[in-house]
């Protein structure tokens, strides 16, 4: 807590969560958003389960899993259904320079603030060497897939969509360097394993197809 001097970041260092107070310009006190705390905590969970390599697509999956569980932490705390949730990440910690409502939007990636570069679909995947290969940019694609699953199934996101994603994270078949396609395949399999072939696995498959990650 209170790391550095007006430090405008929060991160997982491999052993603990670190939170800065923000510069008051782009970021405010980073602990003010419960989903951000959940996001950082989930990086620890990911490291000790799937250990998704923090680069490129596997890195964007690592980021997305943190947003997914961070958002569910917020929804759980507020007792919200997936219809009631705002699906924003970092609402309440963005500073005045951002001209926005949050850091990311899972419902509508690319709309959280002015110039938000997140894509929602695979055809807009951003190739870059910055940010470990755009891990905070391309996470919009798997983020949106999870949102679509939760909205399709309705009710509380942690009843069906959440367990499928958690099972995926713990699946020994998910490699550290997994691509979006690899991850999507495991989510469908995890949904079938936990809930049988039916509405849940169909919703998972349809969601990935909607964001341009084709799963047979």
């Amino acid at each position: 807590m209170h790391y550095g001097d007006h430090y405008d970041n929060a991160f997982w260092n491999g052993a603990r969560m670190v939170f800065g107070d923000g510069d008051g310009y782009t970021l405010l006190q980073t602990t003010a958003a419960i989903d951000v705390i959940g996001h950082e905590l989930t990086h620890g969970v990911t490291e000790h389960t799937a250990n998704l390599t923090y680069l490129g697509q596997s890195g964007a999956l690592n980021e997305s899993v943190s947003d997914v569980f961070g958002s569910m932490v917020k929804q759980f705390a507020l007792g919200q259904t997936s219809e009631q949730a705002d699906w924003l990440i970092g609402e309440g910690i963005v500073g005045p320079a951002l001209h926005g409502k949050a850091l990311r939007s899972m419902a509508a990636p690319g709309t959280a603030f002015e110039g938000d570069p997140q894509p929602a679909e695979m055809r807009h995947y951003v190739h870059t060497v910055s940010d470990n290969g755009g891990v905070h940019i391309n996470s919009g694609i798997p983020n949106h897939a999870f949102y679509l699953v939760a909205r399709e199934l309705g009710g509380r996101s942690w009843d069906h969509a959440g367990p499928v994603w958690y099972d995926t994270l713990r699946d020994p078949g998910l490699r550290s360097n997994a691509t979006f396609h690899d991850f999507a395949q495991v989510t469908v399999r995890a949904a079938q394993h936990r809930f049988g072939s039916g509405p849940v696995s169909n919703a998972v498959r349809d969601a990935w197809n909607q964001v341009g990650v084709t799963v047979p």
Partner: protein
Amino acid sequence: MPCGMPGTRLASPSPERVLVRLQRSGGLAGFTVRSEVDSAQLAPADRAHLERLLGAADLSSTPPPTRGADRFQYDLEVERGGRVQRTTAFDGALPPGLQPLIDWLAARRAGGPPR
């Protein structure tokens, strides 16, 4: 505090122009911010300070692998006499002497939106 005697000047060759570009990306928010300094545009005292910072920074070492997530990624480019030296490093695992240079460059960045 080291300083020259009043009125004295150290003889030195005409300073070579240095361009320093810093890009910070990543972090929880994933914002990218850039700074650029041209030594030709600096006051002599600032130019000397920049040279001291560059001299103290180890730009040739390979940063160790970092664990964790949401760390800032720094991409630094130093152009001098047509030669460009580049290094990439991550917050919490910076090569020796790099932090003061990054702090100085960041402090000189004009206010404005992060991208």
